[in-house]
């Protein structure tokens, strides 16, 4: 594969487009959080928020400056690599967020390791046996687990496996993990709950992609060569559907970072999603911003990666 100039330009264009989205989100989030009723001074003081106390605190935190000025200050800091400090805890937000991000990435990674193969296998087998009883059963099952609220799945799982059977811990606290066994035990329920949410979507999309590929004439050709279904899928189909599959996976993975507030909350798992909910509640804008940057960045990173994979794979197949 030759990385010629046109290809590099195309990749740069994709990355550039993502940066546009990132900037858009950053600006939007800043101003949206700025118009939320109340600010961090109110949130810190709570019931003790008398006007003079609020005003004094606001002044000390630079909150009495106009929104635009605060935005400029924030952007300026950003350009110098300074993401700011939390208005609540006065700790650097970068450290706070990255600590949580690592936890989230761990959970997301383990979930992906489990859910992606399951979804791919389900989607592929459903595509091979499409419109059969098996296909319909998979469809029904995946829709069911997607539609039932995840707090119910999570709670039910905890009640059965932790409370009734005493098999697994009810909480997925990071601090308790000191062996592979306890790691698996702690993560099994959150991971299963999350997998329920994303497997449905992933397997449905995989099925569609696979049906598309299986209808192609090179698959028919492979059948007529005497190839087995497994050989056809692994050798012929997979290399062709890498790009759309990657796209499917990317969309689901981005959900695993930001969309897991409930799982984090039920299992008391210190991830970044709950940090962002907290920071919005506390109106801790620098923290909100960095969380938004991370979510948006992760999403754009994954989709951009998917776009580039698609570009490279189509480059190999169609360009001449």
């Amino acid at each position, binding site marked *: 594969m030759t990385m010629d100039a046109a290809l590099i330009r195309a990749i740069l264009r994709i990355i550039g*487009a*993502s940066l*546009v*989205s*990132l900037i*858009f*989100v950053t600006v*939007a*989030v800043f101003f*949206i*959080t700025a*118009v*939320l*009723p109340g600010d961090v001074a109110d949130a810190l003081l709570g019931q003790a928020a008398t006007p003079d106390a609020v005003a004094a605190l606001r002044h000390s935190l630079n909150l009495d400056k106009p929104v635009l000025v605060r935005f400029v200050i924030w952007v300026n800091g950003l350009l110098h690599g300074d993401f700011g400090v939390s208005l609540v805890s006065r700790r650097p937000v970068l450290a706070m967020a990255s600590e949580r991000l690592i936890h989230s990435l761990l959970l997301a990674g383990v979930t992906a390791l489990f859910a992606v193969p399951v979804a791919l296998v389900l989607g592929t087998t459903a595509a091979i046996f*499409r*419109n059969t009883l098996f296909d*319909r059963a998979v*469809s*029904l099952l995946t*829709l*069911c687990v*997607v*539609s*039932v*609220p*995840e*707090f*119910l799945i999570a*709670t*039910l799982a905890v*009640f059965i496996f932790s*409370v009734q059977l005493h098999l697994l811990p009810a909480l997925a606290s990071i601090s308790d993990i000191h062996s592979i066994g306890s790691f698996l035990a702690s993560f099994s329920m959150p991971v299963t709950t999350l997998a329920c949410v994303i497997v449905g*979507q992933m397997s*449905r999309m995989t099925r569609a992609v696979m*049906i598309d590929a299986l*209808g192609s004439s090179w698959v028919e050709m492979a059948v007529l060569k005497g190839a087995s279904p497994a050989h056809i899928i692994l050798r012929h189909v997979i290399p062709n559907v890498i790009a759309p599959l990657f796209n499917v996976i990317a969309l689901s993975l*981005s*959900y695993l*970072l*930001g*969309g897991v*507030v*409930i799982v984090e*909350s039920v299992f008391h798992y210190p991830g970044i*999603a709950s940090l*962002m*909910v907290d920071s*919005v509640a506390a109106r801790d804008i620098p923290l909100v911003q960095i969380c*938004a940057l991370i*979510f*948006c960045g*992760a*999403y*754009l990173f994954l*989709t951009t990666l998917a776009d580039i994979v698609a570009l490279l794979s189509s480059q190999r197949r169609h360009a001449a």
Partner: protein
Amino acid sequence: MTVASLARWWAAIPRIPGALILFWLLLAVLGPLLAPFAPGEVVSRTVFAPISAHHLLGTDYLGRDVLTRLLCGTSSTVLLCATATLLACTGGVFLGTIAALKQGVTDTLLSRFMDGVISIPSLLSALVAVAAFGSSVPVLVLAMSLIYMPGSYRTSRMLALSIVRRDFVLAARMRGEKAGYIVLREVLPNMMGPVMADVGLRFIYAVRLLSNLSFLGVGLQPPLTDLGSLTRENLLGLVYGAPAVIAPALTIAVLTVGLNLALDSNRGEPD
């Protein structure tokens, strides 16, 4: 539109999904009228009561009649989520098709905007919207439609991209047709199957989002309630096996899964 096209449109509305949608809509409108009690009324001193002749689905965490609450919850869930989904998908499909048709700057700007919206976790966007504008029905509907529009946009843009390349769209453009005509008459009718399947999926997401919002303590204002809130507020009943938590969860599953299976069956997948 001629009689033939009208007949075609009518024929295109599939029988099974049509009947199912009609059933749920009727239930949504008539359900609250069938309720045996007032939705806020405490009818029993026992909370999480099991099924009985008096209370067909038992009582909830405050001792209210679950059947009554379920009928009301179904009503608002169906109406609210359907409205939000329709708004989201109408907007998403229209913009997606326009983007595919116009391409260039329009496409880039729209796509960047949609990517931005989609990259913020949906629950969070909803939370912020409620924090900023309060949790009234219009705010929830608008927030949900804005949250789910980008997904619909992406899907329909992809679908439309393959259609706008077809020669009949080219023919219409060469004739000098306006974008609106091309979208509505040339492109949309040819992607209705997959779009409907997508609508079904977004409907699930809307129901889920509403449920999850109730988990975070925002959502519909009492005495209105939705199926997710019913599940959530009675979650403690789970340990007693109370119908108060099982009934709304089952209703959600039957509603969303049934609708999706019906819409899927109509997808017109090549065999």
